[in-house]
């Protein structure tokens, strides 16, 4: 039965090799916890959508096991699919249907009785109620994406996959979407999302998984990853160029840049520790008679961490 701590999805050794020989998933092991938002990051063609497809029944795995809610997906697919929702990457639906019809269809397809109150609640939450009688073809791209979310929520899934939920959506709508996703999590829905917007993962995800060439390279708490791999960078624009870092400052992770006109500090751990080191450095620079006219301090974000990780993996071949 369901384990006490609530691993809602357990994937072991999942491999998908297509007929042409391309391996999209290569022994993926991944566990998703109940109630979390998990962001799956990876470059194009990394295997994100294939992984989601394998869980949701769109892709036939070549090998491996998928367990959802403590039960084997292959054996209990009827009962388990009822508890899983999917918002696909593509705007794939019959464009001549009305919003209300297509959401009611989704609910019925998953075997549930019509529930006008529930459907109205979903449509209102996604600001679609006023558009309920409109044909999908008349809606903007952002609204169509909301309809796909409404369709996926129509059967009240406990585990929801969002494949690039904010692709092609403007900034305002994207933030609105984030609020909806957070609200779903508040209601107890476990969410797995793929995204190209690293900011999105940084903003919402409890944990982040990085997939590359069909392999999971890393899974970690978002904050822990930021803390472990994050860095503070401080650029001191010098009043006068120098040819070398003064010996007395050697312990401060400093380097020269811009032909000796800037002194660059890189350090910290992503928790803000770097900022206190920069504060100490400002005093040390003055103490060593190093004059500067400007300081630019910034923290590395998840995107930089992500890019660095991928580059490091590429440099070292297959990686972890």
């Amino acid at each position, binding site marked *: 039965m369901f384990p006490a701590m609530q691993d809602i999805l357990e994937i072991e050794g999942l491999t998908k090799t297509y007929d042409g020989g391309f391996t999209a998933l290569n022994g993926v092991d991944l566990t998703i916890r109940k109630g979390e938002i998990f962001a799956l990051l990876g470059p194009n063609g990394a295997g994100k959508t294939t992984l989601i497809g394998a869980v949701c*029944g769109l892709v036939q795995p070549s090998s491996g096991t998928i367990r959802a809610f403590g039960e084997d997906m292959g054996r209990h697919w*009827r009962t388990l699919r009822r508890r*899983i929702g999917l918002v696909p990457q593509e705007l794939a639906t*019959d464009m001549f249907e009305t919003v209300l*019809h297509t959401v009611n269809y989704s609910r019925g*397809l*998953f*075997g549930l009785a019509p529930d006008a109150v529930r459907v109205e609640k979903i449509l209102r939450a996604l600001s679609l109620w006023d558009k309920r009688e409109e044909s999908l073809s008349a809606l903007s791209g952002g609204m169509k994406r909301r309809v796909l979310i409404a369709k996926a929520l129509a059967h009240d899934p406990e585990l929801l996959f969002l494949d690039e939920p904010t692709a092609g959506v403007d900034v305002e709508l994207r933030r609105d979407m984030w609020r909806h996703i957070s609200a779903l999590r508040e209601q107890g829905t476990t969410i797995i999302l793929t995204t190209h917007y690293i900011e999105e993962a940084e903003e919402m995800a409890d944990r982040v998984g990085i997939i590359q060439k069909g392999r999971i390279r890393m899974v970690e708490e978002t904050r822990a990853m930021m803390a472990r791999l994050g860095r503070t960078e401080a650029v001191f624009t010098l009043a006068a160029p120098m040819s070398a870092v003064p010996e007395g400052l050697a312990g401060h992770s400093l380097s020269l840049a811009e032909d000796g006109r800037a002194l660059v500090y890189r350090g910290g751990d992503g928790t803000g520790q770097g900022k206190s080191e920069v504060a100490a450095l400002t005093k040390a620079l003055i103490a060593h008679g190093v004059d500067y006219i400007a300081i630019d301090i910034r923290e590395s974000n998840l995107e930089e961490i992500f890019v660095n990780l991928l580059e490091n993996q590429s440099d070292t071949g297959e990686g972890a």
Partner: protein
Amino acid sequence: MSLFNARSAWTIYKHELARALRTALQSIIAPLLSTMLYFVVFGAAIGGRMESGLEGVDYGAFIVPGLLMLTLLSESTANGAFGIYMPRFTGAIYELLSAPVGFAETLVGFVGAAATKSLVLAAIILGTARFFVDYTIVHPVLVLGFVLLVSASFSLFGFILGIWAKSFEQVGMVPSLFVMPLTFLGGTFYSIDLLPEPWRSVALANPMVYLVNGLRWCFYGQADFPVIVSLLMALGFLALCIAIIARIFATGWRLRS
């Protein structure tokens, strides 16, 4: 959860019928109009000068089962094919594949709707034919059963076609290049016994001959072959289609990547 989710099947069925209503001009009026034209030309206009080959049956009445079969086979195939090809084409099939819906619900929903459309069309054609030719049905219950059997079989065949097809051209190709010509040559407008050899023997290789004659027997109690031959042919085709679709669902061919 049971092995058959009736609500899911009913939802697919209703959804498909709603889609047909949205395209009523294409689904009902177009085939009805073309069939009526056949009745006008071959029934009312020149039918009076032709022999049917069946005792006591006018030529106008003789072609009613054949024309009904011609429409049924073409429309059932096309309806079954487009029903599943459209969600494949738009990508909306993701929802079907990710839902707790299996082989049985999908077939009942899609093929049931396709067959229903064919039955409605058949009823309209038979009613309208009365305006052009005079006919009497000897075995009305058998007509209903045979029409149901043929509609279901060719809706299943269309379903296979819709899964096999990779383009709209392929979906439209089989009904127009194979089903309709074979039915046309399958005794729709003439008795096979009127053909000289070797054409009669060649015609016997056409499976549509048996279906047209089966329905004709149900109408008038006489045909080129015993009705049991036609019935067995239709049942065999039905079983073959179901077996193929069961295999498609088991392997995920052209459905799951």
